[in-house]
């Protein structure tokens, strides 16, 4: 049995509380080497918190109350801050939604890349800058010698995100967490950044945990998809299987709300009525019950576990056999 099938990163039963409310509740997923896992959901479903928790970078108000973040055999969630710092940027890196704001405006991009390298490896300043330059070249920034000495305000948003990717990858991490990396960018730039990430996965075998709310991005780059709703995993599946046969009403409605070019437009694009409940409104049952067309009494009182619908395809729904009705109605 080779190592390749063993997950590189496995998140187990992650629970995060804000003011006593479980905003992320028992989230589990695994990523194998070189694989891209997309974490999908509406704003406020806890996907960004989940991704920041992987590096122990939760905001002050949030608390990790249980769960493990296993990278190989190490539980990052149990590491003390000092040991965690050694892993950040070296074993697990992260890029954020706002690339321009993620760079210190008063420091050249070259020295910010070099800073990440020098934090984890004993190299001279000159060598660090040389490797930063090589990294800028690798992420497709033209004229890297000039860009190295420029400040973030002299670069476009897309270029800043390339710089952030260079910062994230310079120490050769095994996992890259990308928290909505293309949301703040122009559509054409989005495609370039996604292509860059795909290429890096292929070249370096880096695993990616990609946070997004864009199903188009998911279809483009992901191998596996975890759909989150109100802090819980609703459905997790290989990307093709999820798109072909969604087994959770939320996923089915999400997919139905994506505009498609190959299908003649009906009167209106489908939407999901209502909004994500706030943590104070979470009941004992399924958190999607308030918006679900298949809802029954059982959904309101009893939380569905994750059922193995097909090998590798799990869904948290009592009425998973009826989800096809939603998909057919939308088609």
């Amino acid at each position, binding site marked *: 049995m080779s190592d390749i099938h063993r997950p590189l990163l496995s998140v187990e039963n992650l629970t995060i509380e804000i003011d006593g409310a479980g905003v992320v509740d028992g989230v589990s997923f695994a990523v194998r080497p070189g694989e891209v896992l997309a974490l999908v959901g509406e704003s406020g479903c806890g996907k960004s918190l989940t991704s920041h928790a992987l590096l122990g970078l939760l905001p002050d108000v949030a608390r990790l109350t249980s769960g493990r973040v296993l990278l190989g055999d190490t539980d990052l969630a149990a590491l003390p801050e000092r040991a965690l710092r050694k892993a950040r940027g070296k074993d697990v890196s992260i890029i954020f939604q706002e690339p321009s704001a993620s760079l210190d*405006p008063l420091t050249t991009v070259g020295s910010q890349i070099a800073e990440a390298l020098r934090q984890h490896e004993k190299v001279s300043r000159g060598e660090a800058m040389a490797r930063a330059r090589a990294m800028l070249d690798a992420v497709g920034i033209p004229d890297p010698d000039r860009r190295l000495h420029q*400040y973030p305000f002299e670069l476009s948003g897309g270029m800043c995100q390339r710089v952030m990717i260079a910062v994230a990858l310079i120490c050769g991490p095994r996992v890259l967490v990308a928290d909505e990396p293309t949301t703040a960018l122009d559509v054409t730039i989005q495609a370039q950044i996604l292509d860059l990430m795909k290429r890096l996965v292929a070249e370096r075998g880096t695993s990616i945990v990609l946070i997004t709310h864009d199903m188009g991005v998911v279809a483009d780059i992901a191998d596996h998809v975890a759909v989150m709703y109100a802090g819980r995993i609703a459905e997790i599946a290989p990307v093709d299987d999820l798109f072909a046969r969604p087994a959770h009403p939320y996923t089915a409605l999400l997919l139905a709300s994506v505009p498609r070019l190959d299908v003649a437009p009906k009167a209106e694009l489908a939407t999901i009525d209502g909004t994500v409940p706030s943590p104070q409104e979470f009941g004992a049952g399924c958190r999607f019950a308030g918006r679900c067309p298949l809802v029954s009494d059982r959904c309101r009182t009893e939380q569905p576990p994750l059922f193995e619908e097909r090998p590798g395809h799990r869904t948290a729904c009592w009425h998973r056999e009826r989800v096809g009705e939603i998909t057919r109605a939308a088609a």
Partner: protein
Amino acid sequence: MLRYAIGRLIQAAVAVFGVITIVFVVMHVSGDPTLLLVPQGASAEEIAALRHQLGFDQPILTQYLAYLAGLAHFDFGISVVQRVPAIDIVLSRLPYTIYLAAGALTVAVGAGIPVGILMAANKGTLVERALAAVVLTGQSVPTFLSGILLILIFAVELRWLPTSGVGSLSALIMPSIALGALSMSTFARMMRIAMVDELGKDYVRAARARGLSMRAVVMRHVLRNSAIPVITVAALEIGNLLAGAVIVETVFAWPGIGQLAIQSIQSRDFLVVQVIVLLISFIYVATSVAADFAYAAIDPRIRLAR
């Protein structure tokens, strides 16, 4: 950068020219300046003679040009009380005010900046509240009261420091604290606000994600970014220190510009007052120019802007 520098210097020159003109207008248009300059109880002939001697019987434009020509030659007139050039009187007192302002600025920056950093770093804790009490005290107690309290405690009761005078470096300690306390509070508050603001920014989280400790993020990135608003305050505070020196110099019998200003007003030595007003205005302008250059040194967005 060159355009920025030239622009700032031109602005400063305009400000200085404005100050010179306003001082002239206040002195010459608001009434007969001769009356401000003569000793009390002078006869009508003496007043007329002085008016002619000083050229105040000339047309206003002629007077203005003569005034500008005088300034160009560093001629600020003769003190009617002491019969020596007014500028010499002011310059003889200037070093004392510089010592005092430097001492007060050392207290203000040396205590205020660390206090502000500690408050921001310990936001929401008892440490922050304790320091907030210190800051509040510094900004609430008026200088004349804190000066007298300091004298009472450290000079009269404990006998550690001299009550007044300029004999030694130890004599500078209390006036510096009394004068610097208010500025210290201002620096602490501004530093705290600036740093709390910076700590909430995305680049801090991104720097931590590279593996930097919070301390390293603050030292390498946050402090420099926080400095920009604090520099603005520093430029204004240097002016406030000079203004505040009037009271502190009186309380501690410190022979600086502030005390001289009070004495000159009381003895109606108007030309000396005029030199002091001009000098303090120039210092204000000079510190704001210095602040503008400091921004450029720190912030590439200003330095490299075209």
